[in-house]
């Protein structure tokens, strides 16, 4: 379980100092599918960065079960990320000079995963193992980044606007792959998006506004990627 207590995070100095997160508390159960919903500037990406251990809060605590990650040193935090979390970003961040196989290996090596090619097959890129990112479409590149994140067998998968750079069809396809793989591997999903429709796929929806949580609710029915609007 992820437990977030009174997180405060500010940027800037002096008069230009701006509080992005204003005392956020939240609990995320293991295996949950959480969508953090909010408009641009609501603080949702910063919140994701803080709970995933990419950024440190000014104050407040983040626990993964009994481990307080906000108290870990940089080195310990790196080990924590290595062993626990996977990331998928809007901009993919693939390594341009490396093939699909080697990009996915980046994640797989961290978990000693020798069967990582199964994950590449699972996202439908088995035929494109030796292609380079420049030879793939946006949707395919995002699927590579999904495979890369899952090849390290994360306990929690963090996604920051994973469909933000994709068209409707490829966006649905990528989300569908993620949901199928979640069923297969059972990891927790924490996804940031501004798309209200995508929130219908989640079990738990956390709405954010001006650095605060404005609403938390559970969906009674979780829709599939092909059932939601766009």
């Amino acid at each position, binding site marked *: 379980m992820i437990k977030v207590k009174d997180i405060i995070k500010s940027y800037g100095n002096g008069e230009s100092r701006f509080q992005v997160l204003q005392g956020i508390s939240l609990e995320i159960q293991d295996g949950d599918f959480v969508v953090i919903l909010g408009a641009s500037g609501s603080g949702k990406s910063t919140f994701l960065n803080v709970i995933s251990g990419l950024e440190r809060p000014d104050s407040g605590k983040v626990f993964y079960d009994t481990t307080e990650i906000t108290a870990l040193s940089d080195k310990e935090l*790196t080990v924590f990320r*290595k062993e626990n979390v996977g990331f998928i970003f809007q901009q993919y961040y693939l390594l341009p000079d490396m093939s699909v*196989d080697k990009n996915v290996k980046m994640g797989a090596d961290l978990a000693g995963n020798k069967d990582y090619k199964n994950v590449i097959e699972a996202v439908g890129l088995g035929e494109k193992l030796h292609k380079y990112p420049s030879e793939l479409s946006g949707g395919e590149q995002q699927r590579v980044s999904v495979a890369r994140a899952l090849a390290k067998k994360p306990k929690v998968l963090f996604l920051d606007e994973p469909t933000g750079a994709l068209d409707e069809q490829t966006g649905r396809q990528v989300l569908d792959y993620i949901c199928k793989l979640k069923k297969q591997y059972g990891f927790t999903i924490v996804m940031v998006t501004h798309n209200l429709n995508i929130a219908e796929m989640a079990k738990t929806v956390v709405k954010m506004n001006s650095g605060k949580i404005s609403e938390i609710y559970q969906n009674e029915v979780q829709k599939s990627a092909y059932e939601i609007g766009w």
Partner: protein
Amino acid sequence: MLIGIKNAAKLIGISIIACCAVLVCTMFLNFYFDVQSIESEITSELSLIYYNAQVSTAKVVCLVSGGCLLITSAVMLMFYIKHYIDTHKKELGILKALGYSNLKIAKSFWVFGISAFIGTVIGFGGAFLLMPWLYALQNKDKILPEIAINFHPIIFLYFVILPTVGFSLLAISYAWCKLKRPVLSLLKEDFKSLAKVKKHKKDKHSEYSFVDDLKRNTLKSKKVLVFFIIFASFSFSAMTQMSFSMKDLSSEMMGAMILIIGLVLAFTTMFLAITTVINGNTRTIAMMQVFGYSQKDCCKAILSGYRPMSYIGFAIGTVYQYVLLRIMVDIVFKDFEGMPIYEFDFPVMIISLVAFILIYEILMYVYSERIKKISIKEIMIE
């Protein structure tokens, strides 16, 4: 002006190398011209042999040092222009989209010639400051008649005007060639901007770990940086060993001058190469950190591939300095009596190697600390 003086200022590496090249070449070419003016005053056979040796020395030093440093400066200039275009391709793409021609944009690259001008002027001035000492040294036994220092305008033309104009023209023409790509390939941020799609090769190295694969890839992707690392190690090795080995052949001052030039060249080139490697891989390093790779892994993948190259450079430098001194002793000064015997100086080589390894590893440590400071957040909000 599309490209400002500020951009040219970043080419300090070229200025330093140009300065070293012009300093050495101006001193020896000026000496070459001035020593020729006393040819008619030489009467004894010993003086004639010594005169011929001095003329040959000046020619060899000018050609070897000047040629080597000129090529390095030109490679560095082209490398920087390519790097500039790659990092500013969006702005350049917008200019092309607005209707600026390739030539119009390329013309503004002339300012990069300023870096050569600054270096050559400093080198030229410095040479005239050091010339009295060189002239005295070359004729310390007074075998030749008094050699007066004269100003030869042709040298100013050769070593200041021509390099400046040449480097400006090189910058314009190289930029013009590099800008000849479609507007969209400059504007698009994604990887399609890679001009050529790599050939699919069967993965021969799949047994390697990701870090090892990345290490090989980093090395292969920027071959010019390998050249710079080899050149830096070569400069260090050749110049330090030469400066100590030639203590019996020349003066301590000459040795010190060679040592300083070698160290300046080595550090400048090494700094440029490693900084470019890290800047070019910032995103990769950030992603590795996001995924949980340790600082040690990041350094291994990005920096350690250059270590064998640096040793190769050191070995080439060792051979080069030995062959050069051998040529000087066996060919240039072969008829000159009293020339000390020159043998390969093994202890000096060992000391240089140890110093090289120490300095190289300290530099790598400093840069690994820089890798540690790469902000994940900055990459994410780019």
